[in-house]
């Protein structure tokens, strides 16, 4: 008989635009989970879409997980690097699930040359309407405060820890950062990890 603990799983959906650093964020979460002896598996977009297309990572933690893909309405947490991509992936977020979303739109070339439109305000208000546990991250502000746009992924990861839905603590992620990242990037990323928490205080 399977106990409740055996069946416990955390499904995390990361999404954004190719080149934004979604892959590193998922790797840090997986590292942190593995350190605690939790089985991790994931699936992500690799290939042509990495050239500025829509990309996602499905990351699943738990010993009972049998496939790396997350079904509709089954993600506990969404970490979105871009607001339109967050809305695109909403079908996968569970009713009552949490979302951490970078507020800064990335205009697709298709919207710039006029073959599709980007209704920025509508997108943000739709997210607010649909997701109760929503954290919007002002990533432009974060980049200027941290003097780097390259650690958005870890800023969002910090917000994900704060949401309480990641099942991992700040210390767990901190340890993963220290283990995985090169020395010269550690301080910046540890600051990025605590950015949202300190902003909220």
């Amino acid at each position: 008989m399977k106990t409740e603990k055996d069946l416990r799983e955390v499904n995390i959906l990361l999404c954004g635009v190719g080149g934004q650093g979604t892959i590193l964020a998922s790797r840090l979460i997986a590292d942190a989970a593995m350190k605690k002896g939790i089985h991790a598996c994931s699936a992500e977009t690799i290939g042509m879409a990495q050239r500025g297309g829509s990309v996602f990572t499905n990351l699943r933690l738990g010993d009972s997980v049998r496939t790396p893909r997350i079904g509709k309405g089954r993600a506990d947490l969404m970490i979105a690097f871009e607001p339109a991509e967050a809305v695109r992936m909403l079908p996968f977020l569970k009713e009552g699930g949490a979302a951490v979303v970078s507020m800064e739109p990335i205009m697709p070339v298709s919207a710039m040359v006029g073959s599709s439109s980007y209704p920025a305000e509508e997108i943000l208000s739709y997210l607010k309407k649909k997701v109760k546990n929503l954290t919007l991250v002002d990533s432009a502000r974060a980049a200027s405060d941290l003097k780097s746009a390259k650690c958005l992924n870890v800023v969002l990861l910090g917000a994900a820890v704060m949401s309480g839905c990641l099942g991992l603590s700040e210390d767990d992620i901190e340890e993963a950062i220290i283990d995985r990242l090169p020395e010269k990037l550690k301080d910046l990323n540890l600051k990025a990890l605590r950015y949202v928490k300190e902003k909220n205080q």
Partner: protein
Amino acid sequence: MHKEYLMGNEAMAVGALAAGVNFVAGYPGTPSTEVLETVAKRNPGNVHVEWSVNEKAAMEAAAGASYAGARSLVTMKQVGLNVAADPLMSLEYIGVRGGMVIMVADDPGPISSQTEQDTRTFAMFSKVPLFDPSTVEEAFSMMKEAFDFSEKWGTPVFFRATTRVDHGYESIDVPDENEYEKHEAEGFIKDASRFVIFPRLSVKNHALIEKRNSELSGILSKYPRNYILPPEGDGGSRAAGEGRIRRKAIATHGINYTYVLDAFHGASRPEILRIAVPFPFPEELAKEFLRDKDEVLCVEELDPVIERALIHVCGKYSIPVRIRGKLTGDIAPSGENSVDSVADALADFLEDDSIRNVSMDLDDMPALPVRPPVLCAGCPHRASFYAVKQAMKGRKTFYGGDIGCYTLGNAEPLEMCDTCLCMGAGINIAQGISRVEPDTKCFAFVGDSTFFASGITGVVNAFYNQAELTLIVLDNSTTAMTGHQPHPGSGRTAMGEIVEKVSIERVLRAIGLSFVETVDPLDLEASIDTVKRAQEQKGVKAVIFRSPCIAIEKPAGKAVVNTDSCIGCRKCINELGCPAVVLDGGKAKITSSMCTGCMLCGKVCPVGAIGKKD
């Protein structure tokens, strides 16, 4: 033994190293590339690893190594297998000595490919046994079994995975380097009666292959990875008419097996036939599975291979079971399956809606912008396309495209790729079009890696047959689309050796082309001028646009818009489609974090409003 978070492709590489592989060759192609890269990265020092010039060369080199007793691995994507089909078809008749595994990545969807072909079907066609893992863990552990099997039966074997296994990640146990098996190659032993393929040998070996495969069908029925997973709970069986229970079950494979298990998380589920080696098909096992069933749903991706095999078994042994799947419309005949599509198919099959995955109510979702992949900000291909477009303004032109990042030149606003078929095809397609339409100026764009892979023979054909076309070689010194692998023109091998570069200019001159000029595409004026002069020449002429891929070069400063001078004409946006240039309050704005300082936008600006800062 230690735990690692590995990609399926990395797991296959570690599996091959752990099996004592001696020789690895391949050609890059999504989703297969990381297998060879991982062998190169983790090479204990005694493995020969090469990026071959194409898949055919890789297959032949690996066959040679295997003839000499080495364990060899050859890697490619599914369309690469078409290139390697010639040596493979014959190699199956000859057989191998050292274990030889042909790793092929299939791409349902397709996500990054031209076709949705199924290597399982190719296995039946070529008579080569095939292994089809379901998980990252299996991608690792099945690899050694594939090598042992190949060696034992003297046949190359396919190791076929699909994108979600290739690019899936899982925390798995893998051996340390000192636990790797050692395999010593004993060397080639001359034996013309074995290694020279004459018709007499072929007819004899064909008979032996058929006999062997029929024997393997029985042996593979006992292979532990082909198995029947007993039902859980009430087994999903439902009451049918006349108080009878219709006994339903599922047959599946690969990643789909994990989708099926996921659909029943925690709930009862029917019996499952899991097929890890679909060819030669394990008939005895299938017979045992079908024995007490009424209906079976085959959950497959790509071709209905298991479905057809089960129908065949039912017919052959008069087993009255209804086989459902792609051929009955229960599973989509094309495209990638997902956890959701599989859950829906199972819900329909078992008449149980609780299996479905359901989204929150999103009926009022706003229309979202489409976001297809684009050429990177600062990509030199954009400048090359723009130069040719400017040079040929107002002329009737044909732009033959090819496989690589530069296929993205088809998108608006550049629209500089009229056709794309397969590796290297653009050159001879341009040749054909120019014959039928002599008044059209025909161009063929080909990347450096594609030029070496299969462009050279195309140029020889065009030159020999007196074609009228301008060849444009887009040389960014790397195989960019698949993640920057070296090639014969880059002066570096997969093992990191620095070697003499094969010169594209000298190859073209040796073929006989008299107009071969090289230009930096970021020098817009010179580029336009060179193209104009080239296309005026008779016959086949070539322009080589040489500028390194921005992903492997440091940015050369940043473009900045002087908002006082910008007149908001949008020419920079509408003509170039660079993702770093956006409109902000009616004026152009450069997204500094993306800009590489290529300054093409500055050259396009009619009022000189875009300058550069370091």
